[in-house]
């Protein structure tokens, strides 16, 4: 076990190191001024340029620069955005929780809808209900997420007028920023109409969450359904039946566990899809998350922001993925060679 | 007369790590010594996990033994080039199902063997393959067949064809009949016996089935935990087993046979 842990930590460190190297070298690869790409500051004069170059050790060897870069990353000095001149750490600490909040809810929704639906479909497969489930999953898996979001907006916001179509909460509610998770912040906030604000935030959450969750739900359904079908067809289920165990006993003690085991690594794989979808959906719903932020940054050619944004998001995803893979590997005795399930 | 196959002091160490908590298990096969003449059959038998399969793989060169030598017609097999060895010692495996690639036709499997080991041209290869197929009791048309179109027995025949298409000196067969049922097994046994007689090949034959071992072998070798515990001509060993384990093995087999005859 320790061995496994060490191996995964090793892998994580290696991957993060590579990501840092990539983000560092991006400053040189991106078009424009390396100094600006690294610091985000556009030097107004030659003297200022020289001074800044000294600060960022651009006059020294590349290794010194890299070391300085890592030091800065660790100390939280991530430079400033070249378009707004605000500290990137600050911007990201506001934007990133918004995204995490969104994908967390989306993931929860897809888990709580997708997995049970998949199970029901898988157990009673080739029945009308299962047919419905499969159709639902194939169709929703085929939706381009941006189009789906637009359809949602058209139906629920514009036609029916039930739900708002942009932002996290009505801007008139001045929610102080503490954790970055809006629902949590509202609960902590000291404002007069807390309840209304909370309701409002919830209403704002519904459409973006649903847009992201639909695709993931479809994947979960397909995967769970296939997994449970495969497991319930395996010999040991028949063997257990022949031993006279009750259906419940068989399902919960054997089938469920074995079919859930491969779903965990699938969940890890979904994080990347979720983030990609979240980035698109955020721009449509003007959700002030990291995806929207990075996409705005690319529109404005704000290279320092892109660099750091990419680093933060990918480190987050990679860390999470590796952790989940480690957990699934650790709790699954049967897989000496772990395999990702195919969707 | 130079024996076709001579094995001297062959030792192979297999390291297994069952889990990360446990230390490395060592499994040592050998030392194995035997001599096999053309047209002879050596049967290897023993308990499950006694290292028979490992020995077979060492013989054909799928794994490299740490010590000892394998002499093919007096020449060291390790030193002579790989091609000669491939050419002269061939392997047949237990599960015909796993020895045939489901996505490739019989003809192209056999063709590849010829292509790699002979200088024949396309046409000659085809002729040779067809001859061999007929020899093992299949039809020329089987050239174009895929695995799933063949029954178990036919698949085992294809394995045999693959082994003998190069006219080898020795064929090593690792439990070739275990997965076959009695009537098909008899067919295959007959076929092998015929071919051996016709071509004078030496056979190393691994099996648990003492009935068949006794029937087709000239020499027997019994293994336990990697060691050869008894070896000799088939008749001597079956009539007068020396080692405890051998005796038990043979006794238990014959006790079943005896029980059978008691009924009459």
């Amino acid at each position, binding site marked *: 076990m320790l061995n496994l842990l060490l191996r995964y930590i090793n892998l994580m460190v290696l991957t993060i190191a590579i990501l840092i190297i990539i983000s560092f070298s991006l400053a040189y690869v991106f078009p424009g001024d390396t100094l600006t790409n690294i610091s985000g500051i556009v030097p107004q004069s030659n003297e200022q340029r020289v001074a800044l170059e000294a600060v960022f050790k651009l006059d020294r060897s590349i290794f010194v620069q890299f070391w300085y870069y890592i030091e800065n990353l660790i100390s939280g000095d991530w430079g400033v955005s070249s378009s707004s001149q605000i500290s990137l750490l600050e911007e990201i600490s506001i934007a990133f929780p918004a995204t995490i909040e969104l994908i967390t809810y989306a993931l929860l929704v897809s888990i709580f809808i997708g997995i049970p639906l998949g199970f029901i479909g898988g157990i009673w497969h080739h029945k009308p209900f299962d047919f419905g489930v499969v159709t639902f999953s194939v169709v929703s898996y085929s939706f381009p997420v941006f189009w789906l979001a637009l359809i949602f907006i058209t139906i629920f916001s514009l036609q029916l007028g039930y739900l708002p179509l942009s932002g996290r909460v009505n801007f008139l509610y001045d929610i102080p920023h503490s954790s970055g998770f809006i629902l949590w912040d509202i609960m902590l906030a000291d404002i007069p109409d807390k309840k209304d604000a909370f309701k409002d935030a919830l209403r704002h959450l519904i459409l973006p969450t649903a847009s992201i969750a639909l695709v993931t739900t479809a994947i979960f359904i397909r995967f769970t359904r296939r997994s449970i079908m495969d497991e319930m067809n395996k*010999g*040991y289920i*028949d*063997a*257990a*039946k*022949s*031993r*006279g*165990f009750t259906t419940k006993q068989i399902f919960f*003690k*054997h089938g469920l*566990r*074995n079919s859930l*085991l491969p779903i965990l690594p699938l969940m890890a794989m979904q994080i990347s899809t979720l983030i990609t979808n979240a980035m698109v959906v955020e721009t449509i719903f003007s959700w002030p998350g990291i995806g929207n932020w990075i996409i705005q940054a690319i529109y404005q050619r704000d290279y320092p922001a892109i660099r750091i944004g990419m680093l933060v998001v990918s480190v987050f995803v990679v860390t999470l993925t590796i952790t989940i893979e480690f957990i699934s590997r650790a709790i699954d*005795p*049967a897989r*000496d060679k772990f395999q990702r399930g195919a969707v | 007369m130079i024996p076709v196959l001579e094995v001297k002091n062959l030792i192979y160490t297999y390291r297994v790590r*069952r*889990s990360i908590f446990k230390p490395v298990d060592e499994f040592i096969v050998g030392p194995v010594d035997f001599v096999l003449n053309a047209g002879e*059959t050596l049967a290897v038998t*023993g*308990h*499950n*996990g006694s290292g028979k399969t490992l020995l077979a793989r060492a013989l054909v060169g799928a794994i490299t033994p740490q010590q000892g030598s394998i002499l093919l017609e007096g020449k060291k097999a390790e030193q002579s080039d790989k091609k000669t060895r491939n050419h002269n010692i061939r392997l047949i495996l237990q599960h015909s199902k796993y020895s045939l690639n489901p996505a490739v036709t019989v003809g192209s499997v056999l063709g590849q063997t010829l292509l790699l080991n002979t200088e024949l041209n396309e046409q000659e290869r085809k002729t040779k393959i067809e001859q061999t197929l007929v020899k093992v009791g299949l039809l020329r048309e089987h050239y174009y067949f895929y695995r799933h179109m063949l*029954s*178990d*027995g*036919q698949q085992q025949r294809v394995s045999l064809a693959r082994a003998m298409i190069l006219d080898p000196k020795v064929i090593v067969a690792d439990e070739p009949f*275990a997965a*076959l*049922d*009695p*009537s*098909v097994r*008899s*067919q295959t*046994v*007959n076929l092998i*016996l015929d071919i051996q007689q016709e071509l004078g090949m030496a056979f190393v034959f691994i099996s*648990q089935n*003492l*009935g*068949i071992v*006794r*029937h*087709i072998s000239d020499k027997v070798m019994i293994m336990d935990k990697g060691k050869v515990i008894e070896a000799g001509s*088939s008749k001597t060993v079956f009539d007068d087993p020396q080692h405890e384990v051998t005796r*038990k*093995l043979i006794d*238990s*087999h014959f*006790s*079943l*046979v005896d*029980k*059978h*005859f008691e*009924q*009459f």
Partner: protein
Amino acid sequence: MRLLDVKNLTVEIDTGSVFVKALDKVSLTVETGEIRALVGESGSGKSLIVRAIIGAIPDHWIITADRLTWKGQNLLTMSNEQRRIIMRREIAVVFQDPTSSLDPSATLRSQLEESIPEELLDKGMFWQRNKQRREIAIGLMHKVGIKNHEACMQRYPHEIAADIAQKFMIAMALVSEPELLIADDPTRSMESTTKNQILRLLSGLNETRKLAILFVSHDLLAISSMAHTMTVLYCGQTVESGKVKHLHRRPLHPYTKALLDSAPSFQINLPPKSHLVALPGTIPTLKHLPIGCRLGPRCPNARKECVKVPEQKMVHQHSYSCHFPLHSPVDDDLETKQ
């Protein structure tokens, strides 16, 4: 008493395009205390019979039978719950493929202990019962010849060798002290010592506890050493069935004869390296079964009539399905008495 009675069992399986009769009017009985062997070539439908008996046939396959009863109760029409109770205590099964019949994510120990019926434990506090379970488990492991039980019980199925798994499966089957044990190829690829040990164990149980056994195998040696009666199957049709002794002495069906003759151990006078007796040809595949008697194309004395399915004929305990039996069917018992 007749424990298991299968009469004209037909199973049609879905091959994708059409339904084919993988089992065609198979009949089989197991009496109390009887060891019945079920032989046949690979793919002849032995395991299918086992699955039909225990009810592990996929829903969309068609299963019909004149009789499929356990102690007179119809297994086909009874509720799942009734069937489950019977399976729990009265019938036990050893499956053909041991490793895949074990839950890959549970230790052997937990699987074995789970199988111990509550009734076998003395009432007591749960830790006492846990201890009892453990003891029963260890006892069984020793019984089937797994000496190193400690190392084995903590393992997961994929970590153990196939032969150990096989023994373990037998242990699991015996734990509920059943009346009928259905063992599907329990001795496959075992060396003869171990095989002998298992056979002795089973025969012992049969004698002491009147355990009836349906012994599925193609190891004729094992069968003839312990089975009382035997049913021969070819391509999903029962070919011949009767006392082992009688079948050996006077097989009526050409296939039975070919099968028995093919084992070299039964031929004492067979010179080494001589040809074994074998039927020509190969077993037809499921999708291309011949009509009528399925042995037809391979049968040495096949004639026109063989395109009709032969009636099952019964002479005393000995039944056969052949238009042209090898011997004129005589009463075996009478013959022995002479």
